């Protein structure tokens, strides 16, 4: 199914504009992630697609050739996985998964067959008669997914489906979820505030900020080619190198960096992994702190710019706090973005 939203906005009765007029198209079988900090409007957008919120007048939601804008949620045939899973505590795993099929008034044998199929697909066969209360967090998450998918919805909507899990489990289930979504071959929209999650699961990521989609593209595009300071900062934690630009040179308190092109009117960003400790580097600063993170060290350096500059140090002999270090950054690693005026 192709999902198409045009001019969709949401203003709450108290005047809060949760979502500014937004257009979005999701192709058949595509998994799109809505990524952004809390309050950016991503969940509102998802709930509007589901039919749990009504968009402001003028917005339209199309499922293929059907305009579903006026349809209530129960008649849209969407599958939804909630942040808290919203599993019915009064029903067993099996009854939860079969509920949507029951609502479609399918004959009992068919319900049983479909529930069985989904249970298998999500590896829940052993738990089918359990109470919801007797399940672990990861199992609940899979039941929620199975329940959403069982009625064969036109689109699958997932609202922060991993955020209720602890960190270790989250990573395992993230990959599992990515595989399952491909297996279902379903159009899916996935809301998250975690960039790793978005990148691991989605074909395409729409980064949202302050009620609008800031940029949309494949994970690689967003990472390598951010079009705004916000996207650069939110995806991959890019740091702004604050200094004076003079043609194709960036003058920092700690030294001068060459740029690949004329940087007039642009802001310059860099990621920590591109900030290299290099005795021949043009910049010099003082190490403020060093954090050991297993595969690498994170080194905070002061004196290169007003703020602290972070570098990833992969080797064995990390510099010590107080050391003076030379830093180099490859010109191609610098991202030049049009100045927006605001600090963000």
């Amino acid at each position, binding site marked *: 199914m192709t999902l198409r939203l045009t001019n969709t906005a949401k203003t709450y009765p108290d005047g809060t504009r949760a979502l500014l007029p937004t257009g979005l198209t999701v192709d058949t079988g595509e998994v799109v992630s809505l990524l952004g900090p809390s309050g950016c409007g991503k969940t509102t957008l998802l709930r509007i697609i589901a039919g749990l919120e009504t968009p402001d007048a003028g917005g339209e939601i199309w499922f293929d050739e059907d305009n579903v804008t006026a349809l209530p949620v129960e008649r849209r045939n969407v599958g939804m996985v*909630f942040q808290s899973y919203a599993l*019915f505590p009064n029903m067993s795993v099996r009854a939860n998964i079969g*509920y949507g099929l029951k609502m479609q008034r399918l004959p009992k044998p068919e319900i049983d067959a479909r529930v069985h199929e989904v249970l298998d697909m999500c590896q829940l066969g052993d738990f089918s008669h359990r109470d919801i209360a007797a399940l672990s967090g990861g199992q609940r998450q899979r039941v929620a997914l199975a329940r959403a998918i069982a009625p064969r919805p036109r689109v699958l909507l997932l609202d922060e489906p991993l955020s209720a899990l602890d960190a270790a489990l989250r990573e395992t289930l993230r990959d599992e979820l990515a595989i399952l979504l491909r297996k279902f071959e379903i159009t899916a929209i996935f809301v998250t505030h975690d960039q790793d999650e978005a990148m691991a699961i989605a074909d395409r990521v729409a980064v949202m900020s302050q009620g609008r989609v800031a940029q949309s593209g494949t994970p690689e595009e967003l990472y390598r080619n951010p079009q705004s300071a916000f996207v650069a900062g939110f995806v991959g934690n890019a740091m702004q190198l604050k200094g004076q630009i003079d043609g194709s040179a960036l003058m920092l308190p700690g030294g001068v960096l060459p740029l690949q092109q004329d940087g007039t009117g642009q802001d310059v960003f860099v990621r920590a992994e591109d900030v290299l400790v290099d005795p021949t580097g043009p910049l010099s600063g003082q190490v403020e702190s060093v954090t050991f993170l297993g595969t690498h060290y994170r080194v905070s350096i002061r004196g290169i710019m007003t703020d602290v500059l972070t570098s990833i140090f992969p080797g064995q002999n990390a510099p010590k706090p107080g050391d003076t270090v030379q830093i180099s950054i490859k010109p191609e690693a610098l991202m030049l973005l049009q100045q927006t005026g605001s600090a963000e």
Partner: protein
Amino acid sequence: MFNSKAKMLQLTVTLTACAFLLIPTILSVMAGVTANYFQGISSGLTFKWVYKVWELYADSIFLSLWIAIACLFVTLIIGLPAAYGLARHPGWLSRLLEEFISLPLAVPGLALALALLQLYGSMKGFRVSWTFILVGHVLYTLPFMVRSILAVLAAMDLKTLEEGAASLGASPWQRFRDIVVPNAMPGILAGALTVVTLSIGEFNLTWMLHTPYLKTLPVGLADSYASMRLEIASAYTLVFFVLIVPLLMAMQWASARAQRIAQ
């Protein structure tokens, strides 16, 4: 708590209070099965007073049971959807409505009965029917039913559960039937037992609303205290205890369970 002397004092107060509450109850039970209370136990134990009570007051016992069941039925019909409505629409208007229907908890039954009598007393058919008493009982017990269910509903994430059901294609009515009611069950059970217990024991309103032909159990009790010999009054009280004590215990059990769930 701090030293044994203080502890002894506390224990003494506790035991004295227990004695104060228990002894008259035992006296009443004894008097109900003693042949002649004046002469004491030595006059022999008998069930003749209980039989006598059955002869005299069986109607009032049945009327009380009947009204309690009817009251349960009505409070469920009104209270269950209302609790759901209040839970789904939290806000000052709901708070106000909840506060308003809870007035009968605070305002003495006597005052409510006077109010009902003055507005509906002239509607003769209604005034002399058992439904007039029923209205009083529903008025008094409804807030217990509503709050008991509301407490359980408020403790769960009802809105999200319903959204979950809606996303699976359930209509508002199907959500109410499949999600709301089953999950509210502990509250419904606690509320139901409270309603029945309170209805069977209700006196303040009922005394004002009843007619000579429609006496409930507590009205009959007051009647027997005023006009019957002590043994009959006691035997009648005994019958009341037998009815109400198991209900009270069930009610306390169910309320504790609902409260655990509501936390």
